[in-house]
């Protein structure tokens, strides 16, 4: 039986987008969506459209900036880059995520002797 892919956790899409922009630098929406899909492989299902709503949110918060440019195959596209505030936010979110996932991991480990 094949395992069903997990739905994305609430709030984690922001972190994914910020991290993608940190790793790959200036990128358009399609590139960000593809990158998240590639990393998630078959384990994660992301509705590509929701990435755009996430981008709107992050722009409003000032964590990323947007400008129009040309894609590699010369199509007009909107490119996003991480701002200084976004970088700080990414650091904070990463630390928070690591703490939470550490707790979950410890919780899920079998108790010694059981």
């Amino acid at each position: 039986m094949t395992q069903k892919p997990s739905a994305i956790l609430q709030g984690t899409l922001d972190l994914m987008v910020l991290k993608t922009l940190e790793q790959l630098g200036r990128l358009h929406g399609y590139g960000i969506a593809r990158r998240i899909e590639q990393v998630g492989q078959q384990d994660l299902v992301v509705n590509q459209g929701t990435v755009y709503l996430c981008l709107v949110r992050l722009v409003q918060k000032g964590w990323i900036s947007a400008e129009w440019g040309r894609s590699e195959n010369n199509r007009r596209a909107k490119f996003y880059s991480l701002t200084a505030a976004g970088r700080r936010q990414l650091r904070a979110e990463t630390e928070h995520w690591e703490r939470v996932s550490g707790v979950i991991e410890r919780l899920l480990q079998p108790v010694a002797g059981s």
Partner: protein
Amino acid sequence: MTMFLRVAVARIRGFLRPDGPARELDEELAAHLEMAIDDKIRQGLSPEEARRRARVELGNLELLREEGRAAWGLPWIGSSWLDVRLGFRMLRKSWGLSLVAGLALTVVIGLAAVAFDVLGAVGGTELPLAEGDRVVALVAWDAQAGEGVPTSWRDFERWRETLRSIEDVGAFRTVERNLRSGGHGAPGAPAEVVPVAEITASAFALARVSAALGRPLLPEDEAPAAEPVLVLGHEAWQRRFGGDPGVLGREVRLDGVVHTVVGVMPEGFGFPVSHRYWIALRDAPTGAAAGVAGTAAGADLVAFARLGPGVTMATAEAELRRVGLLPTAGSDEGRPRPAELRVVPYVTAFTGTVPGWAAGVILLLVTLLLIPPCVNVAALVYARTVNRQGELAARYVLGASRFNIVAQLFVELLVLAAGAAAVALVASRVVAWQILEDLRRRGDAVPFWMDFGLSARTVLVVAGLAVVAATIAGVVPALQATGRGMQAGLRTLSGRFQPRLGRVWTSLVVLQVAFSFALLPTAVEMTWGTLRSGLLGPGFPAGEYLTARLEAGAGGTAEAVGAGGDDAGTPVATRWGELARALAAEPEVAALTLLADVPGDEPWARVEIDEDRSHRPASAGEITVGTGRLARVNHVDPTFFDAFELPVLTGRPFEAGDFAGGGTAVIVNRSFVREVLGGGDPLGRRFRYPARDHGPAAAGAGAERWYEIVGVAADLRRHAGVQTVYHPAPPQALAAVSLALRARSDPAAAAAALREVAWALDPALRLSRVESLDAIYRQKAAGDYLGASGLVAATLSVLLLSAAGLYALLSFTVDRQRREIGIRLALGARPARLLASVFVRSLGQVGAGALGGVLIALLIGLWLPVQAMGGWEVPGVLPVASAFMVAIALLALAGPARRGLRVQPIDELREG
């Protein structure tokens, strides 16, 4: 916080140019699709398949656009706007409900607006002068008596010389003067009594306002030997001198003393209160005895100053207390008076301090007042909401939450309440304008700091009340109606549910009916009492009678003494004989009399009839002294009844002995016999003024004394006779005197003659408020109309609410029984009889309300002093008002009855 602001700004920008972000998102999504399709074609898919998969992976485009718009803009504004539009539509659709509810809310919110307007005008302490908040009054406060002690000249002078924390220390007092243009012997306009500010020159420095023409008062004008000068206000200059630019240097006489006009102040300047004439306050302003407060006339100075730079009110007060008051001359051991010296904001010296909680209390009261109409409106809204359950259920099925539905109903009511609030604000402006007009007509100038303009606070309060009203009248019934669960609504959709008007709402409607029954008779009596004299007219040639206030010169200002004016405190009586003789010789004067108060506008007093001396046999349980009725009381001289052509119908007129003092004879009018004595022979009957009511002011020691009726005179105002008692009063007994004269042909000529004669006799003899009785009655009627229109609006709103409530209740009752009616019709029952049985049930509820209402109305009639409040007893008002309410009930039945008769048995059975 910055994050919140950043997002808010971004959203507002998106909201203001909604096309920009939407277009950009569309472009972005299009680019995304093209890139995805290119990739998939490169991976070997056919173009169609590549396009299909790319679309699937991107998701629902429409939904994305919708969510994008929501993310960029202010989505709740869009949905609220929809609710607002729905609200307007519902207002139009249920116009009856809108009208009734709107009127009720307008009345209450309007009341609140007026209350806050007045509070803002009277309670405001802001002084519209440069750095007005630093202008203070120096007050000596007698805590025991709870009143201010007038400042004496000596104290003021000491303060002016000693105090260092304040500057521009000054003082003023208001005096009345006979003003006549034209100097020595020069002809001019007739004399008129004007309030004049005797004031120190420092006032003009303190106000930091320079003269529009010429100069203000200067310190040298205060020297006793200086030429008397006068500064005019802009309004006085316009009115009295026709705005003559050459007015400077003109001579005018104040109580006979020639003053030279040296300046005109700019428009609106009224410092210290509402003054239009200023003369210098001289040393020892009212003669020799002015040194001691409270012992000499004219010691009633008000001291003011400006706080020095950086000085607080507390510092200035501490210094003032250190300097203190001079000992009172003549008092034991020369101890200082027990007065506390205070430095207070200037305005509070005149208006007193309006406590901070006053606004809160008013707000609480009007909010409480808002509850009854709102609950009534809520009952109507509930009835309508229950009727609309089908529509609401449909919205619920289509995805609206309970919150959305309640919000929609709230916004619907908010639209209505906002409309009512707007009308209320306009109405409050009209009332404020009317009050100002009224004050102007009566010659009472409004203090220059009082601002009757629309304040932001009033607007806020009105807006808040509209929200409260919408919450009570919209949200409460909406929660109730939706709280029954949408299941009921869904059943409505299927036609199987008959909504019910709950017991609470039914009781409310019944209570409403009771309230209307109870209120109507009193409201009718009050309205009729207020309007009848204006509508019916006085019934005698009031236009031929002139009345005027007569006062002897307040005695001896320095100028008046210097000019040979009369000595202090000349009783009017000593001048009256001469004046009467001189006026009798005037061809224009037909009759002349002296009296304490203007006829038809005398003060009210409670009278207790001596039932022991009643000519009626007292029954066993009857109390000896009656509960007391109200009557107007006047004090008149021997010529009064002749001057007003009031024949003494029974008994005798006043005789010389009655005026000797200590007499107990009184004459009453016919209305007194009818209203107070209840008919019968009035002669010899006695009454008194209960001590607790202090009796009529001029009765003085006469309180608790028994007065005997010796005669009955005709009513002065034929159509609006009010029970009146006339006491005999020689001129010297009257503290305040009005004179009335009857003109032979031209009242204006008689007025001029009156002024001339008075001036010639003594320039200090002041005649004020020279008006025809007709004008006085008309002014009073104008004010009454305003009050009456408020009363009529309130009564009408209660009546309409009541009628609408009845209508809703009865139509529900009939609608609920449609099926039953259908079945019984099918079984052969007669429609008329069926309807009658339905109505009997409904009218039972109405009847319960009516009965309760009539009982309350009777109690109100017994306990409320309707007449003292300006009401007029209307015989049979209770049955007529009851019949009127029953007529409204029947009218409310007409609609449902028509629908009931149209019930088709087959349709009803099929629906069932």
